[in-house]
């Protein structure tokens, strides 16, 4: 293809667009220019093509389902969005911070000094080891930003990363965007007694061991787990730790729900197990800790020799996070750090509040004849809906059962949830497609509205 012809075509076309007006309608061109247009568009299309790293990563379950659930007439138990109010002192600290002139300007790139200092105090107490606020901590844009920084810093082409299914959906595209290969292993339901609990979902040790090889750069751990609510036991963490050490792999530990563990359970940090601090990046979130998802502040904690690479990513991606938000978070943490041995500490009081909501949610679902999986932690609950045997045959699109069910439920019951297959790799979709996920960090009036819908629904079934 001669360069001359291309150049001519290109010079012609833009002037046509200018006459036609503004919006880019690539097909609106005079027909006599069709041949020029075609070659110009083909050229433009190829030069304007996306980079390979994002190929196939454009779809996203949240963009789809949050749009649907934005209708205020729908009772939204889908996206993990608290509609309870954050504690008043948290909001007050932000208002106070915004009123201070210099707190509206840039702060330290790797984390506002007041914030990293208090984070180091809080986590030193929990981990029982010294944590340097400047070298061992990075403040990021939410837990999401920490996951991204960790993957960009530590994962690359040629690496394999183990992801436990079901998984928070961003893990897979992030691993791919870093050029690496995700290797999946499912949690498997082991029937143990009458009531279904998230503890019934376990990893098969032999199967897990088989996933590790010389290419395994990291495993992503999420405890408490989204969506199932599993809180990994010490034995389960030891299993993973042993394999990480044996294969010299890293562990990216997503612990954003760390405070939300219910009676009879304890959140254990895998980084505190022998041999693990040196190879683990532990991620936390202000959004989940203080019910302020819209603050989008998170942090990565780990050894300097790992965190320093996340810091390099930060200085080449967004440089720094919001100052007033970090200052307010620091003040809130100071308040709760002082009462960490007190049951009134928000870390524990929120958990107690949510346990009540969890129990209520479980009861409501049981009354409809459903069998929810009672979560040991987090604020999500999954439930097998196949027992309802809803006729979805008129929904012809080729999608998993749970997607169709949720779409139908939103439309006909005005209640939203999230389909579980959004959290699985392609191979395991069949295993999980009869489950949907409910979020219960909702105020009483929302749960009351859900109750009404579910009671009406159960009468229709009876």
């Amino acid at each position: 293809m001669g360069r001359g012809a291309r150049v001519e075509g290109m010079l012609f076309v833009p002037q046509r667009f200018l006459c036609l007006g503004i919006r880019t309608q690539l097909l609106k061109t005079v027909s006599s220019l069709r041949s020029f247009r075609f070659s110009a568009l083909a050229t433009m299309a190829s030069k304007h093509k996306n980079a390979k790293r994002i190929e196939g990563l454009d779809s996203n379950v949240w963009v789809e389902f949050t749009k649907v659930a934005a209708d205020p007439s729908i009772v939204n138990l889908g996206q993990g969005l608290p509609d309870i109010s954050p504690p008043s002192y948290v909001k007050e600290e932000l208002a106070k911070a915004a009123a201070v002139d210099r707190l509206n300007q840039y702060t330290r790139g790797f984390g506002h000094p007041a914030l990293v200092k208090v984070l180091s105090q809080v986590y030193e107490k929990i981990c029982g080891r010294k944590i340097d606020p400047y070298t061992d901590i990075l403040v990021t844009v939410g837990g999401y930003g920490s996951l991204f920084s960790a993957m960009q810093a530590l994962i690359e082409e040629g690496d394999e990363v183990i992801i436990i299914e079901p998984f928070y959906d961003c893990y897979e595209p992030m691993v791919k965007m870093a050029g690496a290969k995700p290797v999946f292993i499912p949690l498997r339901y082991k029937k143990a007694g009458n009531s279904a609990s998230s503890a019934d979902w376990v990893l098969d040790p032999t199967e897990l061991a088989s996933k590790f090889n010389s290419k395994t750069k990291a495993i992503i751990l999420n405890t408490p787990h989204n969506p199932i609510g599993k809180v990994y036991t010490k034995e389960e963490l030891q299993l993973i730790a042993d394999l990480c050490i044996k294969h010299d792999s890293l562990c990216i530990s997503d612990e954003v729900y760390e405070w939300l563990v219910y009676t009879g359970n304890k959140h254990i940090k895998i980084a505190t197990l022998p041999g693990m601090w040196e190879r683990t990046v532990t991620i936390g979130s202000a959004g989940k800790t203080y019910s302020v998802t819209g603050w989008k502040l998170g942090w990565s904690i780990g050894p300097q020799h790992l965190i320093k690479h996340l810091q390099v990513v930060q200085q080449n991606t967004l440089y720094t996070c919001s100052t007033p938000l970090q200052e307010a978070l620091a003040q809130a943490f100071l308040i709760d750090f002082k009462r960490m041995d007190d049951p009134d500490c928000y870390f524990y009081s929120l958990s107690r509040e949510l346990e009540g909501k969890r129990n209520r949610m479980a009861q409501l679902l049981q009354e409809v004849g459903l069998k929810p999986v009672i979560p040991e932690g987090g604020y999500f609950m999954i439930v097998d809906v196949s027992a309802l045997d809803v006729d979805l045959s008129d929904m012809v699109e080729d999608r998993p059962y749970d997607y169709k069910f949720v779409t139908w439920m939103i439309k006909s019951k005005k209640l939203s949830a999230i389909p579980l297959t959004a959290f699985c790799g392609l191979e395991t979709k069949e295993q999980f497609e009869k489950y949907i996920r409910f979020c219960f960090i909702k105020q009483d009036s929302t749960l009351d509205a859900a109750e009404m819908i579910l009671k009406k629904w159960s009468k229709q079934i009876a």
Partner: protein
Amino acid sequence: MLRRAGLSLGQFLWRRKSSAEFSCSFGKAKMSRPVQAQKLEGLDKNVWVEFVKLAATYPTVNLGQGFPDFSPPDFVKEAFVKAVSGENAMLHQYTRVFGHPALVTILARFFGKLLGQDIDSLTNVMVTVGAYEALFCCFQALVDSGDEVIIIEPYFDCYEPMVKMAGGTPVFIPLRPKTPAPGKLMSSGDWQLDPAELASKFTRRTKAIVLNSPNNPLGKVFSKKEMELIADLCVKHDVLCFSDEVYEWLVYDGKKHIRIASLPGMWDRTITIGSAGKTFSATGWKVGWTFGPDHLLKHLRTVHQNCVYHCPTAAQEAVAQGFQREFERYGKPESYFVQLPQELQQKRDRLVQSLLAVGMKPIIPEGTYFLIADLSDFKAEVPDLPDCEEPYDSRFIKWMIKNKGLAAIPVSAFYSTAQKRNFDHLIRFCFVKEEATLKAAEDILQQWKLKKTGP
């Protein structure tokens, strides 16, 4: 475990052995191989991390990093306080991923007029964590291994590492200073691109050119003619344009800020970037945005949704309120976008006088809140060390911070490795500072001059 193609067999075997040993020594285990991704190679140095730390360590009058030391205007501060303490607690929760509805709506309205485009708030606008993240999304979305990206020197330092991190090759072209007319001070307008030289930089591998007008650190405001030169080449070679316009409101002496996306043939190939931090003097809020055609922005959306996902809600609400207020006052004397440049022009002129008085040669910026000064007359203070790897201006400033208590930024930081030595006698001052700060700087400079010239 062979992690890199470059490992020798010996290294490979050593690592295998080491990791086997480590499995027996719990508590002493450390990663035996390089953990970091190769894409980070050479990206670890950063001028801001270094100089911000220095300015914080020593007592200084800080004319270094670019941030106002005065308050954002009351109307945006109030909007923020209202957003966080108001009735609507949902402003503390997630908002729409690609931009809070109130914000993208007003941005589309406001900038549609300025860009001469019918901008759709949902497909032609995306909000980011500062303009920094907007730049990151541009490179990650659209630059691949083997692509060339043209960068005009001097440049905001992050462009180069971001191109590299995306696997691209930066291709540099310098703005060349022309001697000003006799009796006139040098202006940023005297620094120009050579048209033939610019044309020669476009190859079939050129994916994009990064344009920054008004330019940091020089303060140059590209004229329409200069923009047309660039636009013609972009259209001719089918190249994209990433237009960093964060200082769009800060233009002086009656100059006009031209938006390259408004030129013929450019909307379809341009991403225009803006910043609330610079617009509303609130750099700590980290709210930025991009405008562009859907066929390009959709790729930025893919990067954004896999990188930070949401931006904080409350600040977006406050910025939306700020723009609404400015929309109603556009072009009027009470508009912040009219008042701020007027105020800053005075500060610019004051700093220029202070520098002239002491023998530093300022280059008058047509825009931004930065000013470059030639410190050749001060070279006696800090010896030249020809073998030293660190550029002269960097050493000079470190000395100035410690000995004079005045902070600035070395201009060599805004140049490619090949050019650093040619531009290491220039330092950048930031003048978006309150009167007291500028007065303090003036005093330091006066004292310095007295010391130099003797009793």
